[in-house]
């Protein structure tokens, strides 16, 4: 058996020696923090223009994570490229001719990328939170308030899970282009649009991003959002089911298809 530590060491070398890793992760960090900060500053300035409902359910923690709507797309690109470039470059043939144990190979790769995504996700979420709260002025909350730490930690977890989900999808589709072509419009458009359409939103709330994002809310039905049949952890659980399904699919594909 190619030992697990050997595969992890190899995958760590692989992931740190391509440019795409740094630019996708740096984009995820910069976009999330910067956009979150900008929207916090804007919210503070326009607070009096918010509706009564929004003011009643104002959730300063959630507002500081608004940048994730765009930042998660960089995480999607990171996840897709980590797995997809093996296929698009043909590197998969060289890799699998060296590690015949495909299960160890795939999960070794995904583990290394997940840890990296989680570290970047947590740094991003904590920085977004503190910067956002500083900019919210009098409307701020603090990390010591009930459930706030859970939301901040959950936001980092959410970013990592988005990346893992993308890795699973890329392993299933075996193509960076195809995976990005499906995931980007899905997370950026389809999911967000359906979430706003009456009727469709009952389905959309079970999508991985909609369900998982619940963990970032401190106030129930924050910012006038609809009541959901699941709580913050329930939402994260739904997202985990999606991630597990994507990984299972990716594993079945690499296990059974010719490389």
């Amino acid at each position, binding site marked *: *058996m*190619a*030992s697990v530590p*050997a*595969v992890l*060491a*190899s*995958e760590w*070398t*692989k992931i740190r*020696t*391509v*440019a*795409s890793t740094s630019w996708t992760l740096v984009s995820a960090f910069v976009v999330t923090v910067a956009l979150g900060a900008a929207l916090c500053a804007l919210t503070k300035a326009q607070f009096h223009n918010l509706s009564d409902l929004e003011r009643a359910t104002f959730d300063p923690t959630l507002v500081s994570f608004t940048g994730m709507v765009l930042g998660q797309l960089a995480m999607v690109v990171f996840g897709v490229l980590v797995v997809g*470039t*093996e296929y698009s*470059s*043909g*590197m*998969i*043939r*060289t*890799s*699998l*001719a*060296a*590690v*015949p*144990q495909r299960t160890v190979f795939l999960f070794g790769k995904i583990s290394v990328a997940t840890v990296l995504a989680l570290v970047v996700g947590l740094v991003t979420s904590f920085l977004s939170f503190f910067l956002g709260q500083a900019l919210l002025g009098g409307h701020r909350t603090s990390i010591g308030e009930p459930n706030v730490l859970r939301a901040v930690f959950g936001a980092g977890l959410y970013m990592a899970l988005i990346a893992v989900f993308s890795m699973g999808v890329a392993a299933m589709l075996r193509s960076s282009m195809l995976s990005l072509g499906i995931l980007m419009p899905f997370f950026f458009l389809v999911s967000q649009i359906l979430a706003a359409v009456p009727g469709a939103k009952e389905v959309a709330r079970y999508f991985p991003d909609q369900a998982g994002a619940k963990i970032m809310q401190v106030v129930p039905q924050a910012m006038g959002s609809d009541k959901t049949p699941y709580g913050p952890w329930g939402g994260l659980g739904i997202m985990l089911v999606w991630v597990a399904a994507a990984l299972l699919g990716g594993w079945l594909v690499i296990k059974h298809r*010719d*490389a």
Partner: protein
Amino acid sequence: MIEAVGLTKRFGAKTAVDQLSFQVRPGHVTGFLGPNGSGKSTTMRMIVGLDRPTSGHVTINGQPFRELPNAQRHVGALLDAKAVHGGRRARTHLLALAQLSGIPEKRVDEVLGVVGLQDVARQRTKGFSLGMGQRLGIAAALLGDPQVLLFDEPVNGLDPEGILWVRNLMKQLAAEGRTVFVSSHLMSEMALTADHLIVIGRGRLLADMGVSDFISLNSADFARVRAAGTGRAERDALAELLDGAGARVLTEPDGALRVTGLPLPRISDLAHEAGLRLWELSPHRASLEEAYMRMTQSAVEYTSTEDPRAELWAQEEQGLKPWPAEEAPQVSAEGWYAPPPPGAAAAPFLMPAQPGDLAQAPASRPTTAEDPR
């Protein structure tokens, strides 16, 4: 030792590899020949477990590849020179592979030196030429110092110096007692590199034998005979005589006769008894290329609808007619084969006789590869 038993691979309705059984033994360079699309690469991919056989199996030292512990220490494979992430540097690419089998980092620098890439080790591989890619692939194959080595078309894209290097490397690896399995569609290259041949066509085994056996079994050696004098009369008399003695006689454009089916001393005796003088009586041995062309003619997968090969035959036929061709042009061309270009068998890649010759003319080196003659 690689052993394939009844190896079969189907892609939908198409059978790429059909009931292939062979053994590749250690201590030899075994050439794997076949026209394009004959299933060479698919077979190699099945050996290293990238493709799963539809039926049959292939083992390396008695074990299926996917069950080998520390595969790289047993098998090194160059399957595709372009199968690298172009954004990664050459050295880190090899390092990532080395770490998979716990191969020390020092070995990475060793193999980079072996393949001559030490100066570009820190460049990203997307800037590499095909030849540099091949060298990188060979470096990856050598990483684990394996006993079994597979190379799929290793000389593609290499310059003459590189081809010579690969050839010597293969021979050296085999001399160290390793199993070396090299695929190619370049017969002439195999003639110089391989000791043993496995030839396939349309996924089926056509031959599994030594190189010299392959040539003698699949080609007719011939004698070139030239009657004294330049007139037609002498030539026709000689041709008639040899034809009568049971030989197959073809005429060459310059008036010489190409005789098969009679040993050289017998030709001399016949001519002497008939009172005919000879200006030339020389033995000719067919090259591996010819032997291979004859064998795989029926197994060529991709022939264009224009069939340029048939045109090639027809053109050359004008210059080389069966005797007495002028009177009977309908004589079948069956059994006829292309004459080897002068010296081609000995130097298929326009290689200088001495490797040192290359170094003496470095200025002209880039052009030698394309220069037809």
